[in-house]
């Protein structure tokens, strides 16, 4: 009877929740009763077994299943992760796609027949006085001469009252690129697509091929930006007035094209050289346009390239044309500047040569 009571207290005894007197009573009984002592030892061993139960790890499917149900993150990739590629895969693919897109756009633009007429120059808010329009032809000889040095080099030419000259210089500096040199409009109307394409820059000689583009210039001399009508005096000059239109964006601007040849001739051979070049070109089924701006005033500037003839040829006649040019004069070393990275002509199968004439 006593053993049963003692054994009923063994848990409390072991847990230390018995009062002191009860604890002493149980301890005394366990010392005396071997059976109860064995029960107490067995109980202790049982509890040790329970404490030392081997750890159990949840199977990985459990987390997977729970997160699948809750829509949360899961070790098994959720659908959105399966749809999107990892970064190390998608970034090279995107880069390749970007390059392909660029090449596609470039190729399409290259195939489009681009007009010979140059794109309008960069947008220019004319902060000029009313008389400043005199120098609106950036391809006029003085400007062209100064385009080689940078803008700072041309600056000293602008005197105190030389607002026109200064702006000329600035414009020359802006346009001091190969591209601008090859895109000068021509004053002399010529036959063929060259002349037709150059018509927008010569409003006084409308051509049927291309519509005249109304252009306006703007002045920011006042607070408001207002359109400026070209002054009458500039129209009276020998060269046609070039009006500035808002240019298309850089992407829409036609790509530059053409090649350049410098032809050196002696002073004795100079007269009539343009006609001889024209004959060669026409003999090769090409067309020719003489460079503008070859008046006496231009010649007085002692420009290194006072004159030029622009020739458009079938591509297969290019070698023959250069051969003929060597007969007419000397092509100095480096005189054939071929822009290998640019299209040779306005359309595949044509070559545009700008023959610079230099007198020895």
């Amino acid at each position: 009877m006593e053993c049963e009571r003692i054994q009923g207290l063994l848990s409390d005894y072991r847990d230390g929740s018995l009062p002191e007197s009860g604890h002493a009573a149980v301890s005394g009984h366990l010392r005396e009763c071997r059976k109860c002592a064995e029960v107490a030892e067995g109980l202790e061993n049982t509890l040790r077994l329970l404490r030392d139960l081997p750890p159990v790890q949840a199977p990985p499917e459990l987390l997977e299943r729970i997160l699948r149900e809750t829509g949360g993150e899961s070790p098994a990739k959720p659908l959105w992760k399966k749809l999107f590629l990892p970064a190390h895969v998608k970034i090279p693919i995107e880069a390749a796609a970007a390059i392909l897109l660029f090449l596609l756009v470039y190729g399409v633009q290259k195939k489009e027949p681009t007009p010979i007429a140059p794109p309008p120059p960069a947008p220019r808010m004319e902060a000029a006085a009313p008389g400043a329009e005199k120098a609106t032809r950036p391809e006029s000889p003085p400007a062209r001469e100064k385009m080689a040095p940078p803008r700072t080099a041309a600056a000293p030419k602008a005197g105190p009252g030389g607002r026109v000259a200064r702006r000329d210089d600035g414009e020359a500096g802006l346009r001091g690129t190969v591209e601008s040199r090859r895109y000068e409009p021509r004053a002399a109307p010529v036959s063929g697509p060259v002349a037709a394409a150059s018509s927008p820059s010569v409003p006084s000689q409308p051509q049927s091929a291309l519509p005249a583009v109304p252009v306006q210039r703007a002045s920011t001399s006042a607070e408001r930006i207002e359109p400026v009508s070209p002054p009458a005096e500039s129209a009276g000059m020998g060269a046609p007035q070039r009006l500035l239109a808002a240019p298309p964006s850089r992407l829409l601007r036609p790509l530059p094209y053409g090649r350049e040849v410098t032809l050196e001739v002696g002073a004795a051979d100079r007269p009539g050289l343009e006609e001889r070049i024209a004959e060669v070109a026409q003999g090769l089924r090409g067309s020719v346009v003489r460079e503008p701006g070859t008046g006496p005033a231009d010649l007085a500037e002692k420009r290194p390239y006072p004159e030029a003839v622009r020739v458009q040829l079938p591509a297969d006649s290019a070698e023959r044309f250069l051969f003929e040019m060597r007969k007419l004069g000397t092509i100095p070393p480096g005189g054939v500047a071929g822009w290998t990275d640019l299209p040779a002509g306005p359309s595949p199968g044509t070559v545009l040569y700008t023959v610079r004439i230099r007198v020895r």
Partner: protein
Amino acid sequence: MEKRVDSGGENGRPVDLLLEAFRQGKPGAFDGIVRAHQDRVYAFCARMLSDREEAMDVAQEVFLSAYRNLDGFREEARLSTWLLKIAANRCLNRIRQRTTRAAREVRIFESETQDGDAPPFQPPAPEEIRPDRVVENRELGRILAEALARLDPDSRWILLLSDVEGFTNEEIAAMAEIPLGTVKSRIHRARMTLRKILAPVV
């Protein structure tokens, strides 16, 4: 990996960072909660049910229930306590629903208290197993698991909470919503029954 901070004492219990993150809607917070508690919950279920598949089902139910009700969890208890309470209730329900296996549930406790018969459990090679080597002995672990399975479920889960999970009697009384004295007597009876089952090896 485990960011659980809920191992503090009764008072001044640290805030469970994962729980806070879950309530703030941070992604991955519930993932972390599951990772932190899944082993304990699954082990408890496995010991209660003696069936790994069922244990996984119930553990899944426990976490899904927690996922739905975590906003209402007032942190009166530790998150682990709350989860194990859910697990215990689910396990008891599952045991009660076992119609096909109910017959095999040996009511050791009742039979032992009634007639004092020796349990039908006969562990193999008892003479080679010493109590001081039980930790290393996987066979003994299996024997213990089988012995646990022979306990009355109501005593089993209280014994597991007390002597395996380490909850205090007061915590168990709060979880089971029964008087402290009842908890104590149930624990003692379960211990003595288990001792009797394991007597050949301990």
